[in-house]
């Protein structure tokens, strides 16, 4: 499955705004690229990204064909509680890539 890189601050103070950065390998085939015979490479993009903390959704993004290959998604959240961050990327083939990371709030 695809490689993903996740950057969560090692520790956060309660109430602090933290930045979470994610990067995943994906071709993000737009569906508009012609093959030699005039037909098109079928669209295959990650169309949804969701991040949950302890099961509760904290960030969601819809992605479209204009987004480059290997999408880099960075977002901020307020650190309220420690727990497990779950990241999932869902692509047009219905494949979901799941990754997790620990968030430590002091």
């Amino acid at each position, binding site marked *: 499955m695809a*490689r993903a890189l996740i950057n969560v601050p090692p520790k956060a103070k309660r109430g602090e705004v933290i930045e979470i950065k994610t*990067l995943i390998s994906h071709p993000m085939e737009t569906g508009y690229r012609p093959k030699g015979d005039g037909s098109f490479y079928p669209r295959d993009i990650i169309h949804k990204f969701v991040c949950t903390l302890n099961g509760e959704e904290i960030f969601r993004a819809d992605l479209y064909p204009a987004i480059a290959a290997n999408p880099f998604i960075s977002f901020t959240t307020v650190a309220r509680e420690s727990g497990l961050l779950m990241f999932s990327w869902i692509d047009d083939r219905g494949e979901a890539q799941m990754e997790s990371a620990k968030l430590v709030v002091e």
Partner: protein
Amino acid sequence: MTAFPTARLSVVAVVCSFATAVAAQTTDGRRSGFLDMSPQSQALQKDDTANPAMLWVLDGEALWNAKAGRADKSCADCHQDAAVNMQGVAARYPAFSAEHNRPLDLQGRINACRETRQQATPFAPESKELLALSAYIGKQSRGMPIAPPNDPRLAPFRARGEALYKQRIGQLNFSCANCHDDNAGQKLASAVIPQGHPTGYPLYRLEWQNLGSLQRRFRGCLVGVRAEPFAYGSEEYVELELFLMSRAKGMPVETPAARP
């Protein structure tokens, strides 16, 4: 990209590039293409969790430890820990191979090892696997000065590379030197012409949306001057790389770099 040269913005840019200039600029005026990038692209390369090339490095690490071929050996079975034994290797390639009686670049060496030691089929040029392994091996030399071997057997090949560098070629009749020596720092359309030091290959080009080798870069330039590109893995490319690496001697390895 924003283009409002307010005083504050340029101060920020100067501070950013100054901090990295230590690593990328030499006292003799040679500068890595890194310095010609926007601060945003520089930040991309400097952050290992934002640099897309690191995805290939992870793949390369897995390949390093994966058994392959009829010999059922992994790279690690012979070379053990890449972080120890591959340190500085990319900085001194291309190197002379007595077996082949010619210099091999790093990708050529990987494929030679694959054929003879692992008894596996060599990776295709620009294949994900070959790029991943060379990015992983290259990263072990990151920050080290480029150190071309002082091997007299390389001299004739390096001289041929230099001749090719200065040879006018293609329908536009340009040599590499016409742009990268005579007009480096000027603009070709909106892009700054770099000095052409291959410090960070294989690198992630945003335009390619992919990792690519130095040979892919050569092809791009050759097509640009309307010349017939050499085949991947050809001796011409290795000779050119030999010359460029001696030209970039002492500059730090940036592999895996990011470029626009």
